[in-house]
């Protein structure tokens, strides 16, 4: 058993995270503002049951922008991505299992 296994103690090279430049960030911001406008105007249209999904999808896209660029997760260590993934999956599981109760109640 040689010491070949990856030990994330050693990857200090990403200690200082890479940040996108001014320009990229401003572009992301423009995207976010546009998405806000879209979601507000879409809300005016009567989409029925789709409305919630559309609103949520837009919100998810927006938050992905913030997470990946503003919070530069895209350029950061893989461990942090896994952490966030675990957290989101946990939340989804909780939601799902609770709804197994709510939707099947008599």
């Amino acid at each position: 058993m040689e010491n070949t296994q990856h030990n994330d103690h050693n990857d200090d090279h990403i200690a200082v995270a890479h940040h996108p430049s001014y320009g990229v960030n401003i572009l992301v911001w423009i995207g976010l503002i546009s998405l806000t406008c879209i979601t507000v105007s879409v809300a005016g249209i009567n989409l029925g049951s789709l409305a919630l999904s559309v609103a949520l999808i837009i919100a998810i896209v927006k938050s992905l922008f913030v997470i990946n660029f503003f919070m530069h997760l895209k350029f950061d260590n893989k461990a942090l991505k896994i952490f966030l993934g675990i957290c989101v999956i946990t939340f989804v599981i909780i939601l799902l299992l609770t709804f197994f109760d709510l939707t099947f109640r008599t």
Partner: protein
Amino acid sequence: MSNHIEHAEEIHEIHIHRDDFGSRMGLWLFLLTEILLFGGLFLLYAGYRYIYPDGFIAAATELDVLLGTINTIILLTSSLTVVLAIVALQKSNKKLSMFFLWITVACGLLFLVNKYFEWGAKFHHGIYPKGPALQNMSEGEVLYFGLYYVMTGLHGLHIVVGLAFIGFVMWQIHKDIITSTNFQKLENSGLYWHLVDIIWIFLFPLFYLIH
């Protein structure tokens, strides 16, 4: 299985070495708890919205979409300025960095002022827990406003904490404790601020944009 003995003098100084990534990891872990803190509330929201779809739609009409949109834009902008402050500091432009942070603080305060007027208007109309108007509303509406106050209130509290964090960081930048090579604290305050922003990104459509 090698059994050689390593003399590792060079690691002896490990305790003074700075671990930016470790610090960031700690903050991310904390953010996860924040996500789940609000997650609990989102779970309640989902449950009650499922049980009382009509009440929620009726109640949402009471909120001012314009005000909500303005607040969204304010928060998104403040998020941008935090990032720009980091980029500026990285480029050793301390003045510019401080300037961006001031904008962030201003945006945060503006957001709170808006919220204050929004809540004030609701209170004025008797829409508050045990308030006269709320008592005549349907169950779904009561729950909607209960959650509205709790969730936006908790979010507001996070804004306050975020502002305090950023204020502290600004003071340290001013004192040159945080510098272009040592800015993890600024990063962390930024990460926190973005999370508060993300939560708002979800609160906004869920409360303001239901029809």
